[in-house]
């Protein structure tokens, strides 16, 4: 029953570790971008928009979005799997976490694309 899954749990966990570590680096860059100017002005509209136009920063933002969505929703999946055990629940968790991950990435990407075009 467990054998014919797409990914073995060990592969999923490898993804979990890699996304976690990678996220630390990109988030660090993201936070640094807030700190190289005074914090208040880092949140100003024009500054933000200029960020979105910087292709390097766009790449960072998209990475954060993908990495943390995968890492975070997989974390939630793990916690929910531990809470209850039956096939219906477990399948529901899998479907829900995958869709939530895709949805969040899609929504965030929309912001990046639109802001980039502003």
């Amino acid at each position: 029953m467990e054998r014919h899954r797409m990914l073995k749990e060990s592969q999923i966990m490898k993804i979990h570790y890699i996304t976690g570590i990678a996220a630390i680096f990109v988030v660090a860059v993201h936070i640094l971008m807030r700190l190289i100017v005074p914090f208040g002005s880092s949140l100003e509209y024009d500054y933000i928009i200029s960020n979105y136009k910087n292709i390097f920063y766009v790449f960072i933002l998209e990475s954060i979005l993908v990495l943390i969505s995968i890492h975070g929703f997989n974390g939630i999946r793990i916690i929910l799997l531990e809470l209850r055990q039956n096939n219906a629940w477990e399948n529901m968790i899998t479907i829900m976490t995958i869709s939530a991950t895709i949805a969040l990435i899609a929504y965030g990407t929309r912001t990046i694309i639109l802001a980039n075009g502003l």
Partner: protein
Amino acid sequence: MKELEHDSRNNLEGLKGWLNPSRYGWERISYWFQRITGVFLLIYFIGHVYETSTIVNGQNAWESFLELTQTVWGHLFLIMVIGASTFHSANGIRLIFTHVGIGLGTPGRPDYPYNPSSLNYRQKSGIWIALILSAAAMYYGFTVLFGE
């Protein structure tokens, strides 16, 4: 895995077991913190993606939303986020190391009184360092957010 015949949930400790992590020591506290901070950070992350999406609706929308968050409570929340992410990262790195078997010692012949080598000082100090780093980050966040 074979389907279990014995699936009684009678006497399971459940989430109550998490509520008193102190009786099992630092590793249990770290486990508990890692979970709580993880869930908390995911919630913040979803909120943050939503928050930043207001920028596509123009400057007014962005600034009016920003105003909602630029309060004392908003700043305290952000400081929590800073603490949580620092702890989750630092402790997470420690956990990844342990999961690949690094820093735990090797199996041997334990002598009475037994001190499990996996609960060694390296691990405990890893947890303490994560806690200290997270406190320092929160302090720094505090000076930045409330310092102006």
